[in-house]
């Protein structure tokens, strides 16, 4: 198995741990898009979308190119390797579990306070 640096893994996780950024990647699978179009699509300000695209760019998942006044985004040179993708799915699985556990824990806390 190829070894990846921790910093790189962290950048990948950070990049795809956000719903909007995953949405942007999905969108770009279908075709290139300008930052303005992406901002519209996800009901965001231009500045907000630029930040998201910046994170994806730093992780190597997206590249951008400016032609005239339009900055176009496309999928980056790097796809997540199998291990990174699996670890992210594994993390997401536990996060979903734990977010539900939060509700159970809150309920137990309330019951304890009533007693």
């Amino acid at each position, binding site marked *: 198995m190829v070894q990846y640096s921790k910093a790189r893994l962290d950048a990948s*996780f950070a990049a795809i741990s956000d719903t909007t950024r995953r949405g942007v990647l999905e969108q770009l*699978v279908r075709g290139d898009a300008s930052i303005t179009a992406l901002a519209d699509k996800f009901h965001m300000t231009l500045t907000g979308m630029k930040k998201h695209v910046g994170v994806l760019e730093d992780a190597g998942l997206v590249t951008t190119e400016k032609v005239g006044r339009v900055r176009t985004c496309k999928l980056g040179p790097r796809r997540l390797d*199998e291990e990174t993708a699996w670890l992210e*799915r594994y993390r997401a*699985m536990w996060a979903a579990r734990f977010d539900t556990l*939060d509700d*159970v*824990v809150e309920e*137990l806390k309330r019951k*304890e306070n009533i007693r």
Partner: protein
Amino acid sequence: MKNETKVERKSDRELVVTRTFDAPARIVFDAWTKPELLKRWWAPKTFGIEMLACEVDARTGGKYRMVFTFTGKDMKPMEFFGKYIEVTPCSRLVWTNEEGVDGAVTTTTFEEKDGKTLVTVSDLYPSKEALDAQIASGATGGACETHQQLDELLVTLK
């Protein structure tokens, strides 16, 4: 705002998940060891799976067995089982995963600080090959369709 769940491949054969809960350890521990509580969160609705059985005897030497089915799919139910090697109330759980060959030993610790509890789940596989095989199989034990879709998406990224 939810607390962050972190995952790290700590070594060739160890995977570690950490998460903080805003509650004392005894409450979090209860939710991990009482079957009626465990079954409320171990397989959340978003996984697209349904828990058919959750038998848990959380005592040292006690056994557990969980059975899941995919909602609306004609697939054989999945069964997970093993035994508790160590149970220290409010602090530590160690169990085996015996449904397949080369299963991990899972150690879960509960560390309370200022009324919050840090939960650490560590899966220690018998060998690097065993953990690599788990990853290569693609199975996370969660089988969430959304995540499978994400995975497919990520694999298509060039």
